């Protein structure tokens, strides 16, 4: 056994002491990162491994508002076995009410992969339908009931528990019919907003990406969209990535706070070992041996802490699986995610190195004579090299492994800046505490003087509390601004109803119904078609391998319309709007943000496929769209003359007068125009709010981890100075202080520190929230009073808790006992 190991084992006989705090801070930090990273990786892994089941095949080819032509169908079936699905929005009506649904008509081959499971009954046949479980519960639908969809009365054959993903992230519950049932509804008409998909099981060894490219090259103007099995549930994946990133960043803040606790613990440990180090050096131990001894002790505890944290991370996917099933298309992979765990372990090692190296190196370098004096020399610069490098390495790891490195780099930079800000605040508090100490009353002076005592953790506590409270303020302010926007602003501006698939021939009838049942309501009607962008300046979109984030206009089908006049909520920023009676070659006006993402300007060309027919149009103008006007906002608008002869339907918005409602109109439309789908804005808002609240809950839990870490650091500081505090408090009692005065001194110490920190934290958090809300979310910044009051309240509670924790042991001990053992 090496000498250093032998010395380390003997030295630890004296107890772990402050290394327990190191273990706690590191274990919590690593657990946070490991849990978040493992969960995100397990969901991603499950989605990737079950792509065929999720997609219902190896490849999905989709087209808007039509079926495949005979030639296209032959090409599809030549690739392998296929199943056809037609999907569109519809209204399901029953006596108890109606609801917007996602109607899917499937052929007998469906599903090719994956399983449709039913909570009751079976899959439908003929004039039957199976409805989603949530919808069945909401409208009180059971097997055997009759429901109306479009023009058909359908018998409910089953209640759906799970379906292989038929479309992307759906806001409406599913209703499943077969092709016969779909035809009976009468909803699939020329111009109706339907999507026809063909799921294909390719032959063994066939590459879905190559098959998709070959098909799209063969039918370049067909408007076909391809999704391979590796891209299944892409919308869900992107959502998981975003949420996982956000939670990971919060976990990194917790790690930074934990690093302060580790530094504090390592410092206390180093101080406690100085007499031992002095004795060892007197007896002939070399610095390298002493360094190795301390390194083994700290390293062993650190490894144990990292292992504990990784254990939490490893089981998190299995623990969360049950809760996640409700909103995920598949159960997370419950196996340990080694990549994520490895990343968390690396973060743990780097932060331990960054936090513990300095104090340990300082202790090793102590000359024996210095142990007998308290005025130790400050650490020379060379001892900061390793900690700084380790901290930079941790930051680099965070940026390099992020799915959005630029955003992560900004956030890491902000974290560093905030840490410096609070460190500066802590330093300023110490200086102020030291300077004016002679002129205050005894209790105030004693309490504030404690902030400037040699060895006080004022700066460290200021950073730990500051980071946690800033995060709390920022998350609270962003959350309340977002919820206010969705619950108050949007309903105030958005129309009450959106109606889609109004046949052109029924437009007048619809307007008459609206006039009769919702008098005074504001109606807006626009023509509507769908089709993908197939080429930009003559370059086919299929030649682009990856579509970048900002170029969503090329992703899938786009809503299309034509207009003589510039719609409200739109402003021309380049080019010119066309005359109302324009009848020339096809012109389009596009969203300026989409144009910038594609580097397009006025005069460039864009090709859009409408029902398989390519329309090549010149860009006449760029528009700034106020998406918050909540009207019909189209990224692509055609000039008159290009689309009028294509089969299209009409979309409408209805905004009732102040005290009116749209219930009568909804019933009338459901009765007289069953092909029309009605979308209630409040239903959509309710669903979005529910999702946001779940997300907010997850973010708050992660934030509370950061606060908990701050509490641990605070508790650690109190505990590590327990002896000194106890002695001070007993001495105060010796010279005449009552118990209340002793407690007051502790309260003043913590309250004055946390008050200063809370004020700056609220300001920093509000500033961060303003930046996120204004530049990222682009909504009004209206932080609730509660969200800004929380951090100071938390700070007050922390102070009281810390003061009590500090004072109680001394208040309970007998003075003589304390003085004897001092």
């Amino acid at each position, binding site marked *: 056994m090496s000498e250093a190991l032998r010395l380390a084992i003997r030295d630890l006989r004296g107890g772990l002491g402050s290394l327990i705090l190191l273990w706690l801070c590191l274990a919590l930090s690593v657990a946070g990162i490991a849990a978040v990273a493992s969960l995100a990786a397990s969901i991603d892994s499950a989605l990737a491994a079950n792509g065929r089941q999720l997609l219902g095949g190896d490849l999905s080819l989709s087209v808007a508002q039509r079926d495949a032509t005979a030639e296209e169908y032959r090409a599809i079936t030549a690739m392998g076995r296929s199943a056809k699905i037609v999907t569109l929005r519809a209204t399901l009506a029953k006596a108890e009410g109606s609801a917007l649904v996602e109607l899917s008509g499937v052929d007998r081959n469906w599903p090719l992969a994956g399983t449709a499971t039913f909570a009751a009954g079976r899959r439908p046949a003929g004039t039957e339908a199976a409805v989603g479980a949530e919808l069945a519960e909401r409208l009180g639908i059971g097997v055997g009931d009759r429901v109306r969809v479009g023009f058909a009365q359908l018998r409910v054959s089953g209640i759906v528990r799970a379906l292989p993903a038929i479309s992307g992230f759906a806001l409406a519950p599913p209703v499943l019919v077969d092709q016969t049932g779909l035809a009976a509804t009468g909803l699939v008409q020329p111009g109706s907003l339907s999507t026809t998909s063909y799921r294909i099981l390719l032959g063994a060894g066939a590459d879905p990406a190559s098959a998709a490219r070959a098909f799209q090259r063969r039918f370049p103007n067909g408007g076909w969209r391809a999704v391979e099995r590796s891209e299944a549930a892409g919308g869900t994946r992107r959502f998981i990535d975003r949420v996982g990133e956000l939670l990971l960043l919060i976990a990194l803040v917790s790690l930074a706070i934990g690093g302060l606790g580790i530094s504090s613990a390592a410092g206390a440990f180093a101080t406690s070992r100085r007499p031992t180090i002095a004795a060892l050096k007197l007896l002939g131990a070399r610095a390298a041996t002493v360094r190795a001894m301390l390194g083994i002790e700290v390293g062993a505890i650190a490894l144990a802490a990292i292992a504990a944290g990784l254990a939490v991370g490893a089981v998190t996917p299995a623990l969360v699986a049950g809760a996640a099933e409700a909103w995920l298309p598949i159960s997370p992979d419950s196996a340990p995610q080694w990549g994520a765990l490895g990343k968390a372990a690396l973060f743990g090692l780097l932060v331990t190195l960054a936090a513990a190296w300095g104090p340990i190196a300082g202790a090793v370098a102590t000359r024996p004579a210095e142990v007998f*004096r308290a005025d130790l020399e400050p650490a020379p610069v060379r001892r900061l090299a390793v900690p700084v490098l380790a901290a930079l390495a941790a930051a680099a790891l965070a940026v390099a492994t992020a799915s959005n490195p630029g955003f992560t780099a900004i956030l890491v930079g902000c974290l560093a800046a905030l840490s410096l800000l609070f460190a500066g605040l802590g330093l300023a508090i110490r200086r102020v505490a030291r300077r004016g100490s002679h002129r205050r009353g005894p209790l105030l002076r004693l309490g504030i003087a404690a902030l400037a005592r040699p060895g006080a953790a004022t700066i460290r506590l200021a950073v730990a509390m500051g980071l946690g409270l800033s995060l709390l303020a920022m998350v609270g302010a962003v959350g309340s601004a977002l919820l206010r926007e969705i619950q108050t602003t949007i309903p105030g501006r958005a129309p009450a109803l959106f109606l889609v698939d109004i046949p052109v021939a029924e437009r007048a009838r619809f307007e008459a119904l609206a006039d009769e049942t919702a008098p005074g309501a504001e109606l807006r009607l626009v023509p509507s078609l769908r089709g993908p962008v197939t080429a930009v300046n003559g370059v086919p979109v299929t030649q682009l391998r990856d579509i970048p984030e900002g170029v969503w206009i090329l992703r899938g089908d786009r809503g299309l319309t034509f207009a003589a006049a510039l719609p409200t909520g739109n402003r021309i920023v380049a080019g010119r709007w066309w005359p109302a009676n324009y009848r020339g070659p096809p012109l389009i006006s596009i969203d300026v943000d989409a144009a910038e993402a594609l580097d397009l300007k006025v005069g460039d060309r864009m090709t859009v496929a409408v029902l398989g027919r390519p329309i090549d149009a010149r860009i006449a103008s760029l528009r700034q769209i106020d998406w918050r006007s909540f009207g019909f906002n189209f990224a692509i608008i055609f000039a008159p003359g290009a689309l009028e002869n294509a089969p299209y339907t009409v979309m409408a918005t209805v905004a009732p007068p102040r005290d009116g409602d749209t219930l009568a109109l909804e019933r009338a439309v459901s009765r007289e125009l069953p092909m029309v789908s009605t979308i209630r804005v409040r239903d959509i808002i309710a669903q979005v709010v529910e999702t946001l609240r779940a997300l907010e809950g997850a973010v708050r839990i992660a934030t509370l981890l950061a606060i908990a870490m701050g509490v641990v650091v605070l508790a650690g500081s109190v505990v590590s100075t327990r002896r000194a505090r106890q002695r001070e408090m007993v001495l105060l009692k010796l010279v005449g202080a009552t118990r209340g005065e002793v407690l007051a001194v502790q309260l003043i110490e913590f309250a004055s520190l946390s008050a200063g920190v809370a004020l700056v934290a609220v300001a920093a958090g509000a500033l961060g929230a303003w930046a996120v809300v204004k530049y990222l979310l682009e909504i009004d910044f209206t932080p609730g009073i509660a969200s800004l009051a929380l951090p100071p309240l938390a700070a007050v509670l922390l102070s009281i808790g810390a003061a009590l924790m500090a004072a109680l042991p001394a208040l309970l001990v*007998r003075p003589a006992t304390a003085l004897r053992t001092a």
Partner: protein
Amino acid sequence: MPEPLIDLSDIHLTLGRGAARTDILRGAVLRMEAGETIAVLGPSGSGKSSLLAVIAGLERPTSGRAMVLGEDVAAMDEDRLARLRGRSIGIVLQNFQLLPTMSALENVSVPMELARRGDAAERARAELEAVGLGHRLTHYPAQLSGGEQQRVAIARATAPHPQLLLADEPTGNLDAANGAAIIDLLFERAGAAGAGLVIITHDPAVADRASRTVRMVDGRVAG
């Protein structure tokens, strides 16, 4: 007739429980009149420090009557005891027991500030100058030698002009030269404050300077 400064009758002090139960004081009796100085001698473990702790209100006797400065310290609660110490009893201990986060001036000021005296700083400064530390007012205990720290402790004990001064082996952690100087200072400052002095010591020379010597033997006061 003026009240005695100390009047202890049949003081018993038992600490610990079960097998660790120990009778520290077994019917100690002590009476001290104003103007007296008492040296307490005795072997280690005889209960000298515990006797002082009872007088100072730092230990509550198990039984017996303990009147200090006319107050029944056995019946007082902790806060009243603290106030009594701050105003009227000065204590000097073997290991100085200064507040590490306060300068010399602040250490001496604290008892008077706690007693709400407006002239705390001036009196503290004066007392530190009287003990020869006028040039070390802003130094912290860690920056003072052992002898200097004990001087600060003496100044802290005598600055409020207490009626009673208690010293528990005040030279125990000092070398002979420093120790002698401290003893001289203690007696001088006690006299200047007009305080009665009870001093625990192993040094017969110190005992000779006191007006009376008592011996502790096995938890009792003998002689």
